[in-house]
């Protein structure tokens, strides 16, 4: 699937999940710049290829979206609750995206986790063969008074320059 197709699949996944489960619609495109206080969730997936989906939301958007999801007033939410909702959002977007781009493959999603805002951190286990990550899809949007950015990276072995992804 060409790169533009992957971006479209990611966009459609984000929109579908937000509208269906969170009852939230995008209010436009965003430049997706990072801000202090942004909440970042990451989901690692195993498959052909393996990779990560990273979802970053401004604190304002995360609180508003979490309130809608949990049926609570936004001022009444704990930080932990917001983190859990953002993780679940990342989980659903990842699953939706992977199902769209490779319907015949088997993927396994790890439990999503909150990450630091430094989205370019190196893989934790440096004993693994050196792996090169490629950013294959990204999408940014304005929602609930803040910004949301999602990107997908896949892993490829450095010595396999001609490896073909399932994507």
């Amino acid at each position, binding site marked *: 699937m060409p790169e533009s197709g992957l971006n479209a699949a990611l966009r459609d996944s984000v929109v579908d999940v937000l509208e269906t489960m969170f009852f939230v619609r995008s209010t436009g495109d965003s430049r997706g710049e990072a801000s202090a206080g942004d909440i970042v969730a990451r989901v690692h997936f195993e498959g052909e290829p393996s990779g990560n989906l990273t979802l970053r939301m401004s604190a304002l958007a995360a609180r508003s979206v979490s309130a809608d*999801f949990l049926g609570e007033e936004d001022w009444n939410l704990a930080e932990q609750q917001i983190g*859990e909702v953002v993780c679940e959002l990342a989980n659903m977007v990842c*699953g*939706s995206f992977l199902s769209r781009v490779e319907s*015949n493959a088997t993927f396994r999603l790890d439990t999503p986790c909150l990450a630091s805002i430094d989205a370019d951190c190196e893989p934790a286990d440096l004993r693994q063969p050196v792996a090169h990550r490629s950013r294959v899809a990204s999408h940014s949007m304005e929602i609930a008074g803040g910004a949301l950015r999602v990107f997908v990276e896949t892993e490829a072995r450095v010595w396999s320059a001609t490896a073909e992804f399932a994507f």
Partner: protein
Amino acid sequence: MAYRVLIVDDSPAMRCFLHRVIEISGFKLAGCFEASNGREALELLGREWVDAILTDVNMPEMGGEELVERLSADEMLRSIPVIVISTDATEKRISRLRSLGARGYITKPFLPEALRTELEASLEATRA
């Protein structure tokens, strides 16, 4: 008739959401129980009876696949309809869970009405 439902998911946010959605959808709920993985679910089922089980797939300690297998292998528990709720919409996964004994399968994201429809259909099939 109102029903007792067990929600099995390692995400507290998702458990809360499912409980809300079931109530909002108009499904007649007599009680709602929660477990964060398959092992906890089996422990709870040793103490409480439920009419239906909603379960995630990827969970620590015991995931949804193993839970469905264990329920199907139990003479008493196999009669409880299990509905899998997962982000995985691939045919392979759906077929696998159904072959293990899942009565229904819902892919996230889903509308509240879809959850109610699946619950009612699974309970109806059990009564038949």
